[in-house]
C-alpha cells in the first residue's frame, strides 16, 4: 500500500498540469480540446484515487503520511519553533473525500463543456475549475492544519474567481456577479479568522500542526466500533501502548487527556488543557460556519448562485462547502474531547437547517431554492458531526453531493432550455433575423427583462425536457428522503443519531436537533415539491417555457451518472439491522473507522424512519395540494402568499428573513460610514488638509517667504548692497584726490613733509615751548 500511497501527489499534479496547459495554450486550442484536457485531468485524478482506494482495501486500511517528492523540499517552512512541510495523508477519510471531489468533479467538468459552449473565456473557466480541484485536493490530502488551511484559502479564491466569472456582463449584471464574488470571499475570510485562531492555539498548545507524524499509531482508550469482526484497525491501537516518538495533534490530545491535568501556559495566564481544546474547537466552528455556510456566515451562498451553474453544482453543493464537515470529522479527537463545543455545533447546525429550509419556501429563483436547500442540508451534516455521528455526517455529505449536483445540473438544463426558448421567441418576433449569434447563454437575457431562472416563467417543462424531469424528480425525492433513495438512508442516520443523543444519552442538543431536523426535513420535502410543481408540472406560464429547447447529450451524461448514484448511493452505508439481500452493513462506517476515531455506526430505528418518511410524505402531499392546479394565483402570486394565514410567513421567507439587510444595517453601513469618515474627515481633511497643509506646507511656505523676503532680500541684500554702495561712495570720495593735477600731488607731498618734520622736531619744539 505504501507504494500506492505515494501516488497521492499525482492527484494534485494532474489537475495542475491540466490547468497549466489550458492557461498557457488555451487560446490556441479548441473548446473540445480544452474541455477534454480539463476533464481528463480530473478523470485521471479520480483514477489515481480509485487506485489508492482499491489498494487500501487490499491492505490493512492503515493511513500513510506521504512526503511528495521535490515539492516537500521546496515548500517547507523552517523555523526555530516548528517544522512544517507539505506532507500528505492517505487514509480512508482523505480517500473518501478525494473520491467524491474527483468523481463529481469529473462529471461536472464534462457537463461544463456543453454548458459553457460559446463563452468567450471558455479556457479560463476550465483553468479555474482545475485550479479549484487542485486546491480542494490539497485541502483533503494535507497532513497538517497548515496545508489544510492553504487548500481552504485556495478554494475560497477559486470560489471568488468562479462566482464572478461573468463580471463583464452589461446592464449591471456584471456588477452583481462581482459583488457576489466579493461577498463570498469576504464572508469566508471572517470564517478563516476563526480557523486561524484555532491553528494558532493548536500550534501553541501542541507545538506541531501535523495530524499524524509519519508512522504514528494513534492510541485511543475507547473500545472500537460496533462491528467486531477481528479486523486489525491500524489507524489506532486500542488499549495498547502509545507509539513512541513525536506525535501529531491528535496523538498529543489523547495522551494528555489520558494523563489528565495538563496545563497550557499562555504567558501571564494558563488554562487547563480541556478548556483549550474547547476553545480550539469553537474557533474551528467559526471557520466551519464560514466555509460550510452555517449561521451566521451563510449569507454568501445564495448570492453565489450568480456564478455559472456548473460552479454552483461543483463548489457550492458538492465539494467546497463540505470542507467544513471534513474539518470537523478530521478533528474528531478534539471534538470528542470537548462536548460543549460539540453541543454548540449541533445547535448551530440544526438551527441553520431549519432556518434555511424555511427561507427556501419563499424563493422564486430556481437556483436560490437549491442554494438554501444546500445550506439546510449542510446544517444537517453539521448537526450530525456535532452529535458525534462523524460517519453519518460523511454519509450525508456523499449522498447530498450526488443528488444536489444532479439538481443543480438539472436546473442548469432547465435554465438553458428556457433561455433558448425565449431566444427563439424573440427571434420570431423580430422581423429581421438575428443571425446565429450564440454568444453565451445569458446574453439574450439582457434584451428584455426576462429572467430565465425565475420559476414563475417556467412550467410544464415535463413535456419539453422529459429526461431532465425524470432525473430531477429522482433527485428531489432523494433530497426529501424517500425510501429507498440515498437521501433516505443518510438523513435517517442523522435523525437516528439525534434520537440516540436525545433519548439514550439524555443530551439536550440531541432533542433540539431531533425536533428541528424533523421539521426541516418537512420543509425540505415541501419546497422541493413546490419547485417540481412550478417548473415541470402544470402548464407553461410563458412563451419561453412553451418553446423550451432541450440540450445535447454532453450535458445529459453526467446527469444520468449522478442519477444512478443517487438511486444506489444509499447502499454505501446500510445501517445495522437492515438486511438488504446480504449487502454489507455499515460499509462506510467501517471504512471510516480506520481514520476517524470515535466514529460509530447505528442501529436502524424503524420507528424513527417511519416518522421521517411520514413527515416527508405529508409535506409532499401538502405541497401538491397547495400548488394545484397552478402554483401561482391569477395575479402571479404564490399560493402561500395569497393565503392570508401564511402570507406573513411567506413574505418573510421571500425576504430571506432579512439576513442581508440586517447585516447591512449592523455591519456594512456603520463600517462604510466609519471608513468614509476616516477617509474624508480624518485623513483628508484633518491629516491632509489641516495638518499637512497648515503644519508642513504653510509653515514651510511661510518660512521660505520669511527667508526670502526679509532675510534674503531685506537683510542680506541690503547688507551687501550697502557694503557695495559704501565702497562706491568711498571710492568716489577717494577718487577726488586723484585730480590728475601734478600740483595738487606736490602739495600733498609738501603737507606730508611738513607733518613728518613736525613729528621729528616735536621734542625740540616742546622743549622750546616749555622754556
Amino acid at each position, binding site marked *: 500500500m505504501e507504494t500506492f500511497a505515494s501516488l497521492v501527489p499525482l492527484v494534485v499534479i494532474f489537475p495542475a498540469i491540466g490547468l497549466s496547459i489550458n492557461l498557457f495554450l488555451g487560446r490556441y486550442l479548441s473548446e473540445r480540446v480544452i474541455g477534454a484536457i480539463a476533464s481528463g485531468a480530473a478523470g485521471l485524478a479520480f483514477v489515481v484515487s480509485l487506485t489508492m482506494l482499491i489498494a487500501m482495501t487490499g491492505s490493512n486500511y492503515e493511513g500513510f503520511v506521504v512526503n511528495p517528492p521535490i515539492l516537500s523540499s521546496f515548500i517547507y517552512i523552517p523555523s526555530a519553533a516548528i517544522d512544517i512541510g507539505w506532507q500528505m495523508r492517505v487514509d480512508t477519510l482523505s480517500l473518501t473525500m478525494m473520491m467524491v471531489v474527483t468523481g463529481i468533479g469529473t462529471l461536472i467538468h464534462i457537463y461544463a463543456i456543453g454548458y459553457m459552449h460559446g463563452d468567450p473565456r471558455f479556457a479560463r473557466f476550465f483553468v479555474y475549475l482545475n485550479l479549484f480541484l487542485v486546491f480542494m485536493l490539497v485541502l483533503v490530502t494535507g497532513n497538517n492544519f497548515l496545508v489544510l488551511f492553504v487548500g481552504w484559502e485556495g478554494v475560497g479564491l477559486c470560489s471568488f474567481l468562479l462566482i464572478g466569472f461573468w463580471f463583464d456582463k452589461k446592464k449591471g449584471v456584471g456588477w452583481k456577479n462581482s459583488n457576489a464574488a466579493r461577498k463570498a470571499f469576504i464572508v469566508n475570510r471572517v470564517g478563516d479568522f476563526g480557523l486561524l485562531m484555532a491553528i494558532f492555539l493548536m500550534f501553541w498548545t501542541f507545538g506541531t500542526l501535523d495530524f499524524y507524524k509519519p508512522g504514528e499509531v494513534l492510541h485511543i482508550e475507547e473500545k472500537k466500533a460496533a462491528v467486531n469482526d477481528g479486523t486489525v484497525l491500524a489507524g489506532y491501537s486500542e488499549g495498547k501502548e502509545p507509539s513512541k516518538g513525536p506525535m501529531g495533534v491528535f496523538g498529543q490530545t489523547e495522551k494528555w487527556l489520558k494523563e489528565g491535568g495538563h496545563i497550557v501556559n499562555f504567558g501571564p495566564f494558563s488554562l487547563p488543557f480541556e478548556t483549550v481544546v474547547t476553545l480550539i474547537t469553537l474557533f474551528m466552528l467559526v471557520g466551519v460556519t464560514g466555509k460550510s455556510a452555517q449561521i451566521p456566515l451563510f449569507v454568501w451562498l445564495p448570492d453565489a448562485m450568480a456564478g455559472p451553474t456548473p460552479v454552483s453544482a461543483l463548489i457550492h453543493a458538492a465539494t467546497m462547502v463540505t470542507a467544513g464537515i471534513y474539518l470537523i470529522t478530521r478533528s474528531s479527537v478534539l471534538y470528542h474531547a470537548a462536548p460543549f463545543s460539540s453541543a454548540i455545533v449541533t445547535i448551530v447546525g440544526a438551527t441553520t437547517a431549519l432556518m434555511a429550509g424555511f427561507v427556501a419556501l419563499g424563493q422564486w429563483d430556481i437556483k436560490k431554492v437549491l442554494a438554501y436547500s444546500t445550506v439546510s442540508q449542510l446544517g444537517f451534516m453539521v448537526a450530525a458531526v456535532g452529535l458525534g455521528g462523524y460517519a453519518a455526517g460523511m454519509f450525508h455529505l456523499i449522498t447530498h453531493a450526488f443528488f444536489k449536483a444532479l439538481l443543480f445540473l438539472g436546473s442548469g438544463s432547465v435554465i438553458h432550455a428556457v433561455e433558448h426558448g425565449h431566444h427563439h421567441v424573440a427571434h420570431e418576433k423580430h422581423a429581421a433575423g438575428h443571425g446565429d449569434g450564440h454568444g453565451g447563454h445569458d446574453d439574450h437575457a439582457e434584451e428584455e427583462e426576462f429572467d430565465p431562472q425565475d420559476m414563475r416563467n417556467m412550467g410544464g417543462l415535463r413535456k419539453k425536457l422529459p429526461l431532465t424531469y425524470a432525473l430531477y424528480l429522482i433527485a428531489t425525492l432523494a433530497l426529501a428522503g424517500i425510501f429507498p433513495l440515498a437521501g433516505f438512508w443518510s438523513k435517517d442516520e442523522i435523525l437516528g443519531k439525534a434520537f440516540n443523543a436525545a433519548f439514550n444519552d439524555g443530551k439536550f442538543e440531541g432533542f433540539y436537533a431531533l425536533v428541528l431536523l424533523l421539521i426541516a426535513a418537512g420543509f425540505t420535502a415541501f419546497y422541493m415539491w413546490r419547485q417540481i410543481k412550478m417548473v415541470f408540472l402544470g402548464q407553461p406560464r410563458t412563451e419561453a417555457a412553451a418553446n423550451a429547447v432541450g440540450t445535447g447529450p454532453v450535458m445529459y451524461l453526467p446527469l444520468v451518472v449522478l442519477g444512478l448514484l443517487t438511486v444506489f448511493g444509499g447502499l454505501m452505508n446500510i445501517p445495522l439491522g437492515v438486511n438488504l439481500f446480504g449487502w454489507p452493513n455499515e460499509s462506510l462506517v467501517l471504512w471510516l473507522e480506520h481514520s476517524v476515531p470515535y466514529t460509530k455506526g447505528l442501529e436502524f430505528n424503524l420507528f424513527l424512519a417511519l416518522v421521517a418518511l411520514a413527515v416527508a410524505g405529508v409535506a409532499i402531499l401538502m405541497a401538491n395540494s397547495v400548488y394545484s392546479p397552478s402554483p401561482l394565483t391569477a395575479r402571479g402570486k404564490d399560493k402561500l402568499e395569497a393565503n392570508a394565514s401564511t402570507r406573513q410567513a411567506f413574505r418573510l421567507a421571500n425576504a430571506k428573513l432579512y439576513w442581508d439587510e440586517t447585516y447591512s444595517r449592523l455591519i456594512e453601513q456603520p463600517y462604510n460610514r466609519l471608513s468614509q469618515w476616516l477617509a474624508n474627515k480624518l485623513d483628508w481633511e484633518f491629516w491632509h488638509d489641516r495638518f499637512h497643509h497648515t503644519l508642513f506646507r504653510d509653515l514651510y511656505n511661510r518660512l521660505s517667504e520669511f527667508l526670502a523676503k526679509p532675510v534674503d532680500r531685506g537683510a542680506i541684500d541690503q547688507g551687501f548692497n550697502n557694503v557695495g554702495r559704501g565702497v562706491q561712495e568711498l571710492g568716489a570720495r577717494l577718487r577726488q584726490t586723484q585730480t590728475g593735477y601734478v600740483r*595738487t600731488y606736490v*602739495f600733498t607731498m609738501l603737507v606730508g613733509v611738513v607733518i613728518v*618734520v613736525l613729528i621729528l*622736531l616735536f621734542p625740540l*619744539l616742546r622743549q622750546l615751548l616749555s622754556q
Partner: protein
Amino acid sequence: MTVELVLFIVVAAVAIFSAALMLVSRNAVHSALFLVVNLLCVGFFYLMLAAPFLAMVQITVYAGAIVVLFLFVIMLLGSERLGGRPAKYGWVASGAVVLTSAFLIVAFIAILQGNIEGLKPIEPAPQGRFVHAIPGAPAVDVYLNDERIVEKAAYGQTTALMALPTGERNVLVYPSCTNEDPAQCPNPITSGSAPIAAVPVRFEAGTTTTYIIGGTVQAPQLISVPTTRAPIEADNTMRLTVVNALPDTTVNFVQLNAENPAANETLAEGLAFGGVSGVVTLPRGAYEFDWNQGERRLVAVRGWRGEAGNHHVFVLMAEEVPVAAGEPTTRPVNAHLPPVEAEKAFGGPQRLGEELLSRYLLPFELVALLLLATMVGAIILTREEVIRRERRRLVVSPAIKRINRAVPIDVKAEPVASAALPEPDRQPEPSGD
C-alpha cells in the same frame, strides 16, 4: 664781521633774490637765466665750503648743461612768453604759501636750536706703526696692556699703520715666542716674564705716530715720531722728519747742496738719542743728506728721491755687523722708513676721486649706466612716430600662417607727427600763476 661773512651775506642775498625773480618772472628764458645766477651763487658757496671740485662741477654741469637743456626746450616749445589764464586750483598757491611759511619757521627754529656748531668732526682713531730698531734683539711682540697688536716684528721691520685705541695704554715689548706651535706659547703678561720695554703711552685721536723701539737691549727706548697725514698744502712737496735712535750720540742732519757745498742746510741740529726733529717740508726731487756727529760724518745718504705728498722718516740707528769671530759690533746706519702718505686736500678732486673709485665704485658705475639709459630714453621719448611697415617673413610655416590669420596685422600708416615749431598764433596754453 669778517670778510667771509660779508661775502656770504652778499652772495646769499643774490641767490635768494635771483631765486625769487626766477619764480616770479613771466618769461621762461628770464627764469632760466635767473636760475643760472642762482646756480652760480651756489657754486660760490661750494668754494667757501672747501669743495672746489664740486663748485666746478656745479658750474659745468648745472649751469652749463642743464640750464642749457632747459633753454633748448623752452626755445623748442616756444613758451618764452607765458600767457595768463586763471588757474584751476587756485587754492594750491595760497595753501602752499601758508605751508611753506610754516615749514620755514619750523626749519628756522630747528636750525637755530640745533647747535650745529656743536657738531664736531669725529676724529678718526689714532694710527700708529712700530719699528724694531734694537740691534741684536730677537723678534718682538708688542702688547698694549694685555692685547697683542704686533707679532714677530723682526729687527728693522716696520709694521703697517694700524688703528690704536684712544687713551693711555701700556706698551709692552716682549720677545716673540720661538715655539713652532703657537698654542704652546705662554702668555708673557700672565706668565710674568720681563718685557724688553714697558712704556705708558697716551694715544690721541686723529694722530698718526710712528713708534720706534730703539736703543739697546739693556737700555731700550720707545721714540714717538709724529707722522701726520694732514694734507700738504703745496703741491709737489713732501715732508721729512729725522730721528736719532743711535744711543749715546748727538747728531746733526745736513742737506747737501750739490752746486754749492757751502750752502748745505742743516735741517736738524743737536739731536740726542731719542730726539725727533721737526717736520721739514721739501720740494720733491733727489737729495743727499749727511748724518754728522760734530765734524765726523756718521752716515751718508745719497741718491734718494723723495715723492711728493708723503711724509718721510729717516732713522739713525745701529745695525749689527756680522763678524766672523768675536762679539758682533754695531755700526750706525740710516733707515728710511716707508713713507706715510699724506691725505689729499679736502674737497680736492684727488680726494673725491679716491673715494669715488674705492668705496663708491659701485654707485659710480650704476649712475653711469643710469646716464646711458637716460640718454637712450630721452632719444626714444622724443623721436617722431615711426611708420610701422608690415613685416613679412620670407618663409612662413603653417603655424605662422594660422597665427597670422588669427591675429590680423594692421598696416598702420601712422601720420608723421609734426615736430615743427608751432605757429605763433597757435600759442600753447599759457601757464600763468
